[in-house]
């Protein structure tokens, strides 16, 4: 794996390093942050200084501290969401490929209809109904995103379930759980992993957008999308503070995209051109 990474293009190497750096900050946030996550340590909108490296936000919390904790909250919630989406969508997709027939048809049509509604609009509708708490946010986005995962998992698994070794496993009476975990899943890991990166970027941006609209992660939790919203007025005074959390968001998605691009290039020279 390390050897493989050594031959990767520069963009992918930069991406891997950046992802590791983000993970480090997210994991060790309390050790790195100079102040407490929700502590009000100064007056509102203080300028950049030695005491507050990036100044303070609208109610006087340290921007740097919020940025560091934001890594933990924003990335953590997005990761959890994508993991749920992959578990649900991946399982249903593989089941559809293995079982086929009525099950495949019903789930497939249902997914088609859900995908016909623009996901941001549908998410906003669901958030109106269920309220903007973190569990409902995670579950709603995971549900919407699992439809995309279902498609990928199903089409990838379709090519595997017709193989002799899957048939052999089913003939010798293995259970459905075994067939999925031991026969199908190992053979579709590569496309699923690349898709995981793409879906992560999408969900991460999606949650950031919702938080920016004030409908995602709610205060006082530090989160990059809402931080842009809270400090947005500063942009009119030629102050780039609101761009910092936005840069943090963009940096991570760029890094993940670079790595995914390389992974897709590895699995097929042409596939990186197909989207």
């Amino acid at each position, binding site marked *: 794996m390390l050897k493989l990474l050594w031959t990767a293009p520069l963009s992918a190497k930069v991406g891997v390093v950046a992802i590791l750096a983000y993970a480090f900050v997210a994991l060790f946030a309390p050790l790195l942050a100079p102040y407490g996550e929700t502590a009000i340590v100064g007056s509102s909108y203080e300028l950049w200084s030695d005491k507050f490296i990036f100044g303070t936000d609208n109610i006087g919390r340290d921007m740097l501290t919020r940025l560091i904790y934001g890594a933990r909250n924003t990335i953590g919630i997005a990761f959890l969401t994508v993991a749920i989406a992959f578990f649900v969508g991946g399982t249903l997709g593989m089941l559809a490929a293995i079982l086929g027939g009525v099950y495949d048809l019903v789930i497939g049509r249902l997914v088609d209809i859900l995908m016909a509604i623009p996901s941001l609009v549908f998410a906003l*509708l*669901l958030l109106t109904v269920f309220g903007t708490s973190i569990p409902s946010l995670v579950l709603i986005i995971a549900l919407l995103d699992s439809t995309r995962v279902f498609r990928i998992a199903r089409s990838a698994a379709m090519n595997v379930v017709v193989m002799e070794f899957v048939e052999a496993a089913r003939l010798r009476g293995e259970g459905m759980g075994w067939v999925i975990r031991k026969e199908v899943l190992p053979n579709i890991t590569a496309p699923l992993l690349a898709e995981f990166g793409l879906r992560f970027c999408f969900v991460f941006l999606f949650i950031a957008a919702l938080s920016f609209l004030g*409908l995602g992660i709610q205060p006082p939790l530090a989160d990059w999308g809402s931080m842009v919203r809270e400090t947005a007025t500063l942009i009119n005074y030629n102050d780039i503070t609101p761009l910092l959390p936005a840069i943090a968001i963009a940096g991570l998605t760029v890094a993940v995209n670079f790595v995914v691009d390389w992974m897709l290039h590895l699995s097929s020279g042409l596939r990186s051109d197909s989207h």
Partner: protein
Amino acid sequence: MSSLTRIILQRLGLGFLTLFAVSLIIAFVVELLPGDITQAMLGQSATPETVAAFRKEIGLDRPAHIRYFEWLGGIFKGDLGQSLASKRDISEFVGTRLSNTLFLGGLAAAFAVPLALLLGLLAALYRNSIFDRIVNLTTLTSISFPEFFVAYILILFLSVKAGIFPGISNVSTNLAFGDQLFRTILPALTLTLVVLAHMLRMTRAAIINLLSSPYIEMARLKGTRPFRVIVYHALPNAWGPIVNVIALNLAYLVVGVVVVEVVFVYPGLGQLLVDSVAKRDLPVVQACAIIFAAVYILLNLLADIVSIVSNPRLLHPR
């Protein structure tokens, strides 16, 4: 009936069926509302009598399927119900909002489509050149940017620092067209940048896909000049995928408009949707959702039909 009209009618029917299913889902989701919208509107201290009276006033006391068909019937008559917050008819103010949003989306498309096609074509023609690599890297980067990031960068440089365009797009119907255009340019530019990268990458992929087919290689091998290969051999077959790319991205644009409208305080449908979600004004959210879904589905339908019409192999399925 020719096979072409039959296929198109089939697709249209399918589209309306989808729209119907979507309206059912939207109504179903609204029914799921835990507790009651009345409780949220009137507060915890409301007596059971006032709650009952309010439920009767907004029609919540009747069964769900009757309300659904009334709502659906109302849409066809141009009646979208009444806002809970302002008590006004939704159809009164949703029209101008929608036309504002379509104006913004249209302007962005007018910038993005020619630019994306030109750059995508060039990147495909000079594949693996420095130009192609730069385009690949920049588009990959800009796909990763959140919309509000692009928006604030544009505001910072073009509005705050240079002072060319206004940072807030408070258009209204009594403005002259030129003025309205001027105030819409910054949000339109943001949307252009957001959608350009996707469109460019898809165009490039479609053209490369085409250029690798055997008949293009044949044309090259028999010594046809590159320009002639592109214009006479590749382009007639490329229109389908290209128009497909455009339609798909327009659908994406319609939804991407929401965040951009909020940043620029642009009075469009997206802004209305976000405001209503915050106020939990369910009838307005419902109306906005069905309108957005309808536009989205229609554009996807268009992409589907165009790709069939322009592809003889899909037109005459065996």
